[in-house]
């Protein structure tokens, strides 16, 4: 039987693996996609202590190598369920079943989708969830950004320097994001605000051609556009575990700074936990705490 199974090889999961291995526990890390998690999408991290600049790819690779060198095993399988039998936990993946003493859920979060028909097939054909990743493809073109938080505002600002025209579509008439960014945007001559509106239709011919937005009064407006950047937040990847551990109304696992869930022996770490700041430094901190707590828990068995 393994000591600890960690679900997710993002910054939280891999840091947990480092701490657990250094405490001489046997560790298996399960990863559904790629090691490193979301951070591989960013070309430059400027706020992680010690390194003034590091790319997301390099951050992820170095963290992965560090965990591997300490003996953590990483397998590329998706965890679909956890079965709690008290002192014994079973983690079910799409390929195997692993028995262990403690589990750390470090599954992070994923982009929230618009939920409009055709969205999935148009990803990479006009629809994007990452302005810094795909913005460069829209030089001198027309783009729309959907959302009202900081990410949407920053995406719109970033794109306004690249694209010819930027529409910022928001379902309310004021923004939740920072006022300074909002003010910068208002000064841009190529940014048009579309308030009180939601995207209701995507028109495509092989690729996105236009979108339809519907306002509060039910009035429909068609906007011709080459790109649609969706920035309406992220959702925690906790669907598979929400029937076992307590989550809040948005799906974030409920646990305090000690990363303990309401189920003994099951811990949570990273962006999928209820918290205020979702960043690398808080994800890695969670990883350290969750692993330490898991080691402590195993000591009591």
């Amino acid at each position, binding site marked *: 039987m393994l000591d600890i199974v960690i679900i997710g090889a993002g910054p939280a999961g891999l840091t947990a693996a480092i701490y657990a291995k250094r405490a001489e526990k046997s560790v298996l890390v399960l990863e559904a996609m790629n090691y490193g998690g979301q951070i591989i999408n960013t070309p430059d991290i400027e706020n992680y202590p010690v390194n003034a600049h590091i790319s997301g790819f390099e951050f992820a690779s170095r963290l992965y190598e560090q965990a591997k060198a300490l003996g953590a095993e990483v397998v590329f399988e998706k965890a679909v369920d956890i079965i709690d039998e008290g002192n014994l936990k079973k983690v079910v993946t799409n390929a195997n079943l692993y028995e262990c003493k403690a589990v750390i859920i470090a599954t992070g979060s994923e982009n929230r989708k618009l939920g409009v028909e055709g969205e999935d097939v148009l990803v990479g054909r006009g629809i994007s969830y990452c302005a810094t990743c795909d913005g460069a*493809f829209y030089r001198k073109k027309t783009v729309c950004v959907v959302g009202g938080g900081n990410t949407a505002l920053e995406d719109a600002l970033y794109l306004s320097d690249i694209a010819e025209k930027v529409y910022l579509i928001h379902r309310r008439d004021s923004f939740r994001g920072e006022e300074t960014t909002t003010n910068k945007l208002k000064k841009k001559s190529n940014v048009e605000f579309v308030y009180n509106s939601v995207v209701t239709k995507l028109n495509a011919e092989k690729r996105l051609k236009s979108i339809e937005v519907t306002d509060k009064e039910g009035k429909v407006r068609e906007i011709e556009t080459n790109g649609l950047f969706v920035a309406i937040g992220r959702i925690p990847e906790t669907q598979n575990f929400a029937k076992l551990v307590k989550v809040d109304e948005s799906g974030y696992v409920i646990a305090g700074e000690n990363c303990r869930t309401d189920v003994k022996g099951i811990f949570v770490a990273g962006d999928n936990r209820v918290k205020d700041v979702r960043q690398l430094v808080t994800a890695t901190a969670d990883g350290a705490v969750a692993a330490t707590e898991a080691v402590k828990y195993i000591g009591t068995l």
Partner: protein
Amino acid sequence: MIKISQDNFEEEVLNSPVPVIADFNADWCGPCKMLKPVLEEIESERSDVKFVSINIDDEDLIAEDYEVFSIPCLIAFKGGKEVARSVGLKPKAAIESFIGEI
């Protein structure tokens, strides 16, 4: 993986006797760097498909011609024509099944 430019695109991709998997990527793209070793691994396992690499910053005209708007993007060519594409970083098994279907 052969590096593709305007000069050899026709010869290596469009006129290739075997199907081609073209990997559109860029130096600043982290997911592309993650995908590369996976592609190289599959390349070493298969001789019936040719793998090529296209840097979208150097070869923006090719990227524009094929309407690549997000990377990593894999385009499968057969007989000089695009027959399928896969956008985004995916695990090895998913890439293998994408290649298997062409």
